[in-house]
């Protein structure tokens, strides 16, 4: 087994009373695409911030390669080995600077051999010279997202955390952006941590990779993407899939439609008040992630 790019060991992250991430362990191999899915407030973006190293876990530890992060080893090489592509392509590019200086400044500071034009061409922005002289607000969402991806690849990172990179992009252009990310993974061996609420794009980008499903801060199911989506085992994932347009199953296999307050999650298994399969045990004991599912009574057993 090749050494992991990033390893999370029993990581938890708390913001005051809010347990954003609870006891997540994860290993991302070089070039691997891991996708994490779940609804808003499930902790997937917080988990992304831990992987990025911009949030320090309250418990557990994060290793980059074999180095522990946040143990005084916050070196330049370590920090730059993981990069980010944000959802809001507008907020992630400095609005008062041209693309040329957004990409050119890091090239100069780190004395890289590449040029702004080369970079722009590598993400399909053609003619590069035209785009280099634009301000972010003069580009479309898809074009801005390509600039963000170009910036993320500047320092030849080992991993890129992409948090909903296509949800602000027009549907007809999404696929091309996902293809670009896929190409970077295949050709340059960059691993991706793809955070999304969209199961279909998750499957598309991470084909052959792994999927984590999160609910209220915990990973409730994980495994190879095709297995997880074709043979869902956790009742929550069943409900999610039944909610997809075109896959109608009514009523939804849920006892309550509203998500509980994440600041005050239910005891035992956090899903039990909404779960149609819940029994007494679910209210008192929280199931561990075993064989890819955290449920006392999973489907398919």
């Amino acid at each position, binding site marked *: 087994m090749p050494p992991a790019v990033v390893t999370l060991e029993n990581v938890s992250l708390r913001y005051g009373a809010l347990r954003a991430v609870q006891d997540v362990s994860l290993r991302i191999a070089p070039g691997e695409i891991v996708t994490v899915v779940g609804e808003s407030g499930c902790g997937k973006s917080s988990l992304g911030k831990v992987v990025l190293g911009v949030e320090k876990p309250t418990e557990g530890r994060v290793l980059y390669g074999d180095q522990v992060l946040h143990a005084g080893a916050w070196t330049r090489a370590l920090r730059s080995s993981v990069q980010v592509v944000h959802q809001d392509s507008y907020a992630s590019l400095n609005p008062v600077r041209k693309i040329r200086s957004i990409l050119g400044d890091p090239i100069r500071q780190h004395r890289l051999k590449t040029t702004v034009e080369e970079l722009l061409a590598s993400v399909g922005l053609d003619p590069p010279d035209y785009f280099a002289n634009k301000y972010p607000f003069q580009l479309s969402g898809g074009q801005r997202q390509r600039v963000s991806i170009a910036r993320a690849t500047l320092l030849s990172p080992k991993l890129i955390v992409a948090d909903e990179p296509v949800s602000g992009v027009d549907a007809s252009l999404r696929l091309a952006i996902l293809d670009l990310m896929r190409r970077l993974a295949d050709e340059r061996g960059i691993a991706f941590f793809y955070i999304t609420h969209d199961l279909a794009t998750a499957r*598309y980008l991470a084909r052959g990779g792994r999927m984590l499903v999160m609910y209220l801060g915990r990973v409730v199911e994980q495994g190879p993407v095709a297995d997880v989506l074709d043979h869902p085992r956790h009742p929550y994932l069943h409900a999610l899939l*039944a909610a997809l347009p075109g896959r109608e199953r009514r009523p939804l296999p849920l006892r309550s439609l509203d998500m509980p307050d994440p600041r005050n999650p239910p005891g035992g298994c956090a899903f039990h008040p909404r779960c149609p399969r819940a029994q007494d045990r679910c209210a008192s004991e929280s199931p561990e992630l075993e064989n890819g599912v955290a449920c006392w009574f999973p489907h398919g057993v």
Partner: protein
Amino acid sequence: MLKFEHVSVDYLVPEGRAHSVEDVCFELPAGQVTALIGESGSGKTTLTGAVMGLLAPNARILPESRILFRDQNLLTLTPRQLREFRWRQASMVFQAAQSVFNPTITLGEQLVDSGLDHGCKPARVHELLEQVRLDPDRILPAYPHQLSGGMRQRALLAMALMLEPELVILDEPTTALDLITQAYIFDIFEEIQRSSGLTMLLITHDLGAVKRLASYVGVLYSGRLVEAAPTEQLFARPSHPYTQALVGSLPSVDGAEPTGQRLKGQAPGLLHRPAGCVLHPRCPEAVERCSREVPELRGGVACHLR
């Protein structure tokens, strides 16, 4: 019920006239959900603005445009008639952003008071809230920030229904909502539409929402209506090259490969609409004629090659 006839809207900008919507002809049958789908810059927001009289001050509606509601041209209404139309006959459900409600007063005040102002009794407000599956006793004393996005969206729908409109415009009603929330909001929309025979116009960029709710769809690209067809037909056999690319661009949860042709490049900006068919610079099938002649909508599709 609602009929767009040769609707064209320009915006006056420092650089000149930006053509936002050009020569759109489209009809909404009564008692059904009809969708207008389009991506950013397609003109869908401008079209709704024209219906509701909510266009920006720099918008110019070209003279041959007509929007008929029960044979009355909405574009020639006086401001007073327009207000009457907005209250009595049509209402709008916006994206469920937090900003739609006043954050400093309770929903009870906002819903009940605005209802009373227009002659809707509190009992009716309660009834409507129950119809959208909200508990009035819990909702009315709450402030907007205490509700989830899905609850706010349902409250907005209840508010839109208070004056018993004939036409409800849903503007991106499920954007920014989670899957499960989306699913039951679709259910509620459908239930209410069926039980009251409302006419609904759904404006969205979300193909999933269209598939789920609408029976008839118009596809907008760069200010023009490029295809109009029953929903099932549109998804099963898209005809226009743009619709084919759009429908085919959806990855599937089943893992089926997206089949559609990919379009090159980006949609043109409002100021630089190409001559001829607006799609031709990106269209994989374009022939010489496409760059010269604007194709008319014939048999539900505006393409020289169909």
